[in-house]
């Protein structure tokens, strides 16, 4: 068990150079997954590259019509940006369900995404939000939809030398809302048994004009259930529409039995939580109950 080298470059290029030169090197954000995996012996990177010394990677900022969230921003820091909280409460809440306050003071959404656990809390919310992440690599910067990053448990689509530098979310108008709920056995400190992110837009009449529903922990990766969104569009989010949405959600579930939940329970919870999540998102969008 040789110790990894530790690097803390202060430029994105510096990180890319270190990562591209060494296939087992890992970027270090909050470390709340990486360090646990190193300690347990599950991974043995030859180098750890701390990205927190790069000023532009920490914090939330506005660039025109876009919120830019640096990849090294800890989850709790998202709450300090009132505009982000008002526009994307579901994303901020999802990120602030991970672990404990101690963990969230370190953990980042980029780490949550790139750990590629199907149960990651922030990912269904980001997918529902249609978030984009900017990836830096040897070939420069590219934009990728969040849902295209994880490919299977523990694996991402990032190429050698690539790492996520930021998330981009649009500034929101009125009549839009998002939400995230998860099922865990306790009230805190658990991995999601099921997670559901919802993001809606309605018109002045209360008719849903756009909807994205994403599920966590019911498949090898977080899944965007397009049929579920489609079931809501054009409706007033009435019981019938919600039931159709729930059926679409259940149909999209392909969970496993494991120590955290059964197939039957996960399917049932996906439906229950999808309905609850959509109701919260609708309320946030301004729909009449």
């Amino acid at each position, binding site marked *: 068990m040789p110790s990894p080298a530790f690097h803390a470059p202060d430029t994105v290029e510096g990180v890319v150079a270190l990562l591209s030169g060494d296939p087992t090197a890992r970027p270090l954000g909050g470390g709340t997954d990486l*360090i*646990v995996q190193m300690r347990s012996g599950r991974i043995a990177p030859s180098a750890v590259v701390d990205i927190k010394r790069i000023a532009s990677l920490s914090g939330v900022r506005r660039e025109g019509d876009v919120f830019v969230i640096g990849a090294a921003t800890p989850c709790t820091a998202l709450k300090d940006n009132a505009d982000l909280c008002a526009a994307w409460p579901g994303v901020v809440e999802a990120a602030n369900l991970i672990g404990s306050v*101690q963990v969230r003071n370190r953990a980042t959404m980029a780490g949550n995404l790139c750990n590629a656990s199907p149960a990651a809390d922030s990912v269904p919310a980001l997918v529902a939000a249609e978030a984009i992440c900017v990836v830096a690599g040897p070939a420069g910067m590219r934009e990728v939809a969040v849902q295209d990053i994880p490919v299977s448990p523990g694996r991402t689509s990032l190429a050698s030398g690539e790492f996520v530098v930021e998330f981009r979310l649009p500034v929101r108008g009125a009549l839009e809302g998002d939400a995230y709920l998860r099922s865990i056995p306790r009230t805190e*400190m658990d991995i999601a048994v099921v997670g559901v992110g919802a993001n809606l837009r309605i018109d002045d009449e209360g008719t849903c004009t756009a909807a994205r529903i994403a599920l966590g922990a019911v498949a090898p990766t977080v899944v965007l259930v397009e049929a579920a969104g489609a079931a809501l569009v054009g409706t007033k989010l009435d019981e019938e529409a919600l039931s159709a949405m729930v059926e679409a959600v259940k149909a999209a579930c392909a969970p496993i039995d494991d120590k955290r939940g059964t197939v039957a329970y996960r399917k049932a919870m996906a439906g229950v939580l999808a309905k609850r999540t959509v109701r919260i998102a609708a309320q946030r969008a301004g729909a009449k109950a």
Partner: protein
Amino acid sequence: MNRNHVNTTINGDATQFLCDPGASLLDVLRDALHLTGSKEGCGSGDCGACTVQLDGEMVCSCLVLAAEAEGRTVATIEGVAEGSVLHPVQQKFLEHAALQCGFCTPGFIVAAKSLLDRNPNPTETEVRYWLAGNLCRCTGYDKIVRAVMDAAAELRQERTPA
């Protein structure tokens, strides 16, 4: 063996140490710097017994690489009291008997102090959720929550000009 040389500030004191690049901040605090007040209950961020403040934010020191402490400030349980004068959270833990074995206590005190530093008037629910990352197996949390609420009340009184 490749070792990192780290300059940091611990409980207000400029501190230097050499560490294995894979060593956690907790390892260095406990084994190199002999600050054993921060405890290792799990090594995976699930028990909070190793809670310290890093640049003012509470973190599990088992989930921080020691090398990351370069140029940053670390505050541990050993720095919570001012000399022999206990912080109100410490005093209230004693008065409310909010500890039995006491092993989780340093982590709880650092976490509770972090809460009260930013929110001097938390509700019971806020206290309970803030402290959810700190496991206690002895007390059932009742007296801990009471101690933190009482410490908050005392801090509010201290901060209110007479």
